[in-house]
């Protein structure tokens, strides 16, 4: 066989095989597209979880469960079944979440949270001076929507392991409480929170004893938790910190918190 003839034969075979590959890929294509959409949704939820963890947990809790007195739960039945009617929203819940996160709220719709409704949900979209891109906000909404089966009780809610702290000591329990009770939302503690709504609490143990004369450091911290307005650090306003920690927390829990804060001497 001459080279030209060999090339014609091989070339024809290549063309036929190429056509076969394209046909096979074409047959698989609708399934691939469908899979890709699902996969993309999965990755969007993952991405949303990471964005949520970095931006939303300080007020809405590490698992979106809400923090009493600060911000509502995003995973309870009420949120998934009644919230849209309550607010009079005509579109989907996911769009509602996107809308609220994007623009934030000028006035809280539920003044039972955060000092009578201000500050309410801040704006998050870059378009209005916030830190997030639109695709990040969409991802957060996808992530919150994924709580639906837990919220409606279709799946049992697992017990989160949470931050690993030594629960056998008062300091360890106090550290866990610091997150669970929502202190992280407003107070800076190195390695735990960077919020600046309230005073930073690192090294409080060193100065607490000398703020109000006649009061030990422990007494001062204890009083500041159960009756925040008793002494307001200069530069901060009264009535911002929730007044009801004495009702929410047991005496033992408050003492754990005090122990934890007394332990942060740096």
């Amino acid at each position, binding site marked *: 066989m001459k080279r030209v003839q060999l090339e014609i034969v091989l070339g024809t075979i290549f*063309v036929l095989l190429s056509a076969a590959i394209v046909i096979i890929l074409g047959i698989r294509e609708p399934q691939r597209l469908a899979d890709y959409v699902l996969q993309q949704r*999965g990755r969007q939820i993952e991405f949303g979880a990471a964005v949520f963890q970095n931006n939303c947990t300080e007020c809405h809790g590490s698992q979106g469960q809400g923090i009493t007195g600060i911000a509502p739960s995003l995973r309870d039945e009420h949120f998934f079944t009644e919230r849209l009617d309550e607010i009079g929203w005509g579109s989907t819940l996911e769009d509602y979440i996107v809308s609220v996160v994007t623009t934030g709220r000028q006035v809280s719709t539920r003044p039972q949270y955060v000092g009578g409704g201000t500050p309410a949900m801040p704006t998050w979209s870059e378009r209005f001076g916030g830190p997030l891109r639109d695709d990040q906000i969409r991802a957060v909404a996808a992530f919150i929507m994924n709580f*639906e089966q837990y919220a409606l009780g279709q799946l049992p809610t*697992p017990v989160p392991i949470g931050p690993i702290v030594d629960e056998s000591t008062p300091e360890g329990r106090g550290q866990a409480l610091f997150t669970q009770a929502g202190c992280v939302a407003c107070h800076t503690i190195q390695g735990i929170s960077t919020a600046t709504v309230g005073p930073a609490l690192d090294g409080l143990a060193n100065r607490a004893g000398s703020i109000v004369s006649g009061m030990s450091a422990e007494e001062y911290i204890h009083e500041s938790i159960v009756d925040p307005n008793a002494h307001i650090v200069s530069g901060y306003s009264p009535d911002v910190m929730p007044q009801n920690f004495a009702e929410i927390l047991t005496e033992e829990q408050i003492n754990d918190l005090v122990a934890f804060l007394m332990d942060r001497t740096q």
Partner: protein
Amino acid sequence: MTFINNILKRLNYTQLPPRGEWKAFIFKLIDERVRIITAGLNLRELRAIMRGDPPTEKPNPRYKVITTSFVAHLRPRYYPQAATWFTHTFRLGFFVTFFFVVEVITGIVLMAYYVPYPDQAYGSVLAIESNVFFGELMRDIHRLGAEAMVAFSWLHLLRTYFTGSYKGPRSFTWLTGVILLAITAWLSFTGYLLPWDQLSYWAVTVGTSITESGPIVGPTLNLVMRGAPDIGAGGLLRFYLQHVILFPLLAILFISIHYYKVSREHSISLPAVVEELELPPDKKKEYNRRIDLIPDLLSHEIFLIALGTFVMLVILYFRLFHSPLETHANPQNTPLDTKAPWYFWWLQGILKIDPANILENLLNPILQPLLGLFGIEFTLELSKLLDSKFIMGLIVPPVLVVILAFLPYIDKNPSRLSSKRPFAIAWGISWIFIMLALSYMGLPEYGIETPAATRVIQDLAPEEGEGPLREIPYAELEHAHGVYTVGEDYGRDLCPGLAYQPDHDKPDEVVIGCPHLTAVFNQFSERLRVAEEDGRLPDLVARIVVEQFQPGMVRVTPQVEWSDPETGEAKAYEHTYFLHENRVLGSH
């Protein structure tokens, strides 16, 4: 009848043929049209071409095509037989052109869907992959073709160098070739930014920042390229326009010049052994025998096109190549390992060389004792005088390119035989090794120190891409909730009670335990233990926490705590990974 006569009149026939001559008449009619369409070939000639017969008329009508047709006039009439040896050219230049055409075709398809705006670019690429029939295939072919085009350009350059084909009359062809190499690299680089993911954003940010160190015009040039101090909407649009208009046009222009020189002026070079050695007359005659464009070269090229297309499709069918798409570009978050595209690793490697430091280390041990004899204490400090980014980024690479471009005017050796140019051959081979070494130095693994704990976790689950931790099947993770502590759980199967089916279509296949998770945990333990033993992570406490976070999604958190080896301060590093069950579906 008047109607038919009118048509015939238009075709320059005034009357119908007599009965019995109709067949010949129609044949003639068709034949003339065919001759017009093929620019000179009639039906008999076409048949002779197909059958491999010699030309049917004189002068050879197959050459006439080349003088009359615009497209064919770009082509040579023939090449000497020896110039078409496969081992002489390896068809590298042909394949570069082939890939360029592939890029143009797939690029036009992609342009129909792509939006060159930061808010939407990434989403439009996702839409191409998830919502366009064959969209992923088009993008993969475009990416594969781009990388192949760069690779084949380099190989083509090497071939031309080692066969000495740049010499004599082909000097200018070589110069246009080097320009084309630069155009190809720039086309590839501008396309790199368009998906607007972390990979592209940071590769281009790092790349354009090189110009910033230039004197006087440097910052302005950087601003012109980026469209703003940072790459944003303006920069993306500028790169897009360069990618789809400016540089394709330049490429077409220079390919035309380059190819015209080869095809119509100097032909492909003969192998040096044929050109320069005394050969017996019959061999010489055979080697110079004409291989005509029609049919031999053309049929060979069609064969190569079929081969190239087939190979690309096979590569994509078996997923040996897949165009990457990382997470959305984030100007606030520099990824730990930024990596340029592989054909720029050498440049990244050059940038890691600090000439001031090298000179200081070389000269100071000599200078200091010398000056010490005269009682002068002196330490040479060049780092303030020599800006390494400027020298290694803006001076050295352009100088290298200029040397490359003017090689034919530097290399005065008239012979093309490799035995008569040993220095040039050795020089070429050493540059291959220099480029490979520089490319290796360009990798993020080289010369960049990352804290031990961060490195271990980053290697298990890199910020971008997958890595062993993310490749743990969800079926293992959803039943493996718990805290696995380094030093306590090492070596055992972490979930002894578990059995799952990795593939629902194969019910016979069952995996016992969680081998993937166990392997990742063991690797985590071993690497941390090594770091603890050599003193980088004293008082090590480390664990991996696996917990169900949402329906269909787990959270995996590797945590490391240690004391700083110098200050004794307590340190901790952890990273959370959310893994959804649908993250890997189908062929992804």
